């Protein structure tokens, strides 16, 4: 099946942005990734099984493109993460600390944590999206959670 790009942009633009942002930690880079990911969707002739399948594919592409961005040297005038976080309108007082704690994790933990806690993906699904083993996903989740617990103390409950 195929869905229109317009529909997918409306549905998943922010999901792709956040998945990318959790890796790049930069608004402009994450927006570029979103744009390029939809470009790739328009170019692919891949046939998808379901809307969920398309969403997982889009996230996988966005994750790969985000990793690529981190390996390029290009200079770009970037807004600092601190400025960006300070300009966001967090609902609750602890929200900014939580987001900052997640974004301070090692890159490989951040995306696993994000897909698990934000996208509600299972370990098996994350394993497929990131093309890593389930035990690697579990390991990164475990270590990421422990680091979050250390950073956030009582604001992060032990849910291992």
């Amino acid at each position, binding site marked *: 099946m195929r869905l229109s*790009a*317009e529909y997918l*942009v409306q549905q998943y*633009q*922010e999901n792709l*942005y*956040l998945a990318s*942002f959790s890796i790049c930690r930069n*608004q*402009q880079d*994450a*927006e570029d990734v*979103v*744009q390029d990911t*939809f*470009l790739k969707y*328009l*170019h692919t002739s891949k046939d998808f099984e379901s809307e969920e399948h398309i969403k997982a594919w889009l996230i996988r592409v966005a994750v790969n*493109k985000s990793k*690529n961005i981190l*390996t*390029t*040297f*290009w*200079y*770009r005038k970037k807004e600092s993460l601190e400025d*960006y976080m300070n300009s*966001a*309108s*967090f*609902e*609750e007082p*602890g*929200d*900014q600390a*939580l*987001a900052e704690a*997640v974004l301070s994790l090692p890159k490989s933990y951040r995306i696993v944590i*994000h897909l698990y*806690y*934000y996208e*509600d993906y299972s370990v098996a699904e994350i394993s497929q999206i990131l093309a890593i083993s389930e035990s690697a996903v579990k390991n990164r989740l475990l270590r990421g959670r422990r680091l979050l617990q250390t950073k956030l103390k009582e*604001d*992060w*409950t032990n*849910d291992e």
Partner: protein
Amino acid sequence: MTNRENYHRAFSALHTSDGFKVDLEKTKMRQTFRFRNAVTAACVILALAAGGTTAYAANIGGIQRTIQVWLHGDQTDAVLTVDNGGSYTITDESGENIGGGGGVALEADGTERPLTADEIYDHLTNEVTTDTIDGHLYLLYKDQKLDLSDKFSDKDAFYVTLQDDDKELYVTVMKDGSLASSPDRYMVPGVDFTTN
């Protein structure tokens, strides 16, 4: 509240910028130009003439496309017009000529043919160039620019690898802004190319 609920709420506060909008028209336009096989199978020689004079393309029904070019330090929309003979002109939004040139492709069997519009578009959009803007030497590639001003303190050449998705390009830039590039290795000044 669970960790998941807290996480959701916290990250829901982070958004794309106000002016950001996925440009599906732009992506559809780019889709038309994805013909790279002919270029990789052939050696492309393209002559660039700044402020070129080839203006006849439009008179014989040349193909026109919008292209992004670097002009005075900014990326600007321009119109690329290609004729059937492999010559092209670039004009700005007011129709003023800002560049042009032409080229041929050498096929594997040594035969020559004019570049197609796709190949010229592909070449120009993937071209690495340098420009001096406000006294600073910049390396320009697609929509990116890298200030090289402080890279030559004790040497005449600066080596840099450009990574673009799965593609790598090894670029050697000289102090005077001349450059040589290769997808395989760094070109060595005085060995692989000559400098002034």
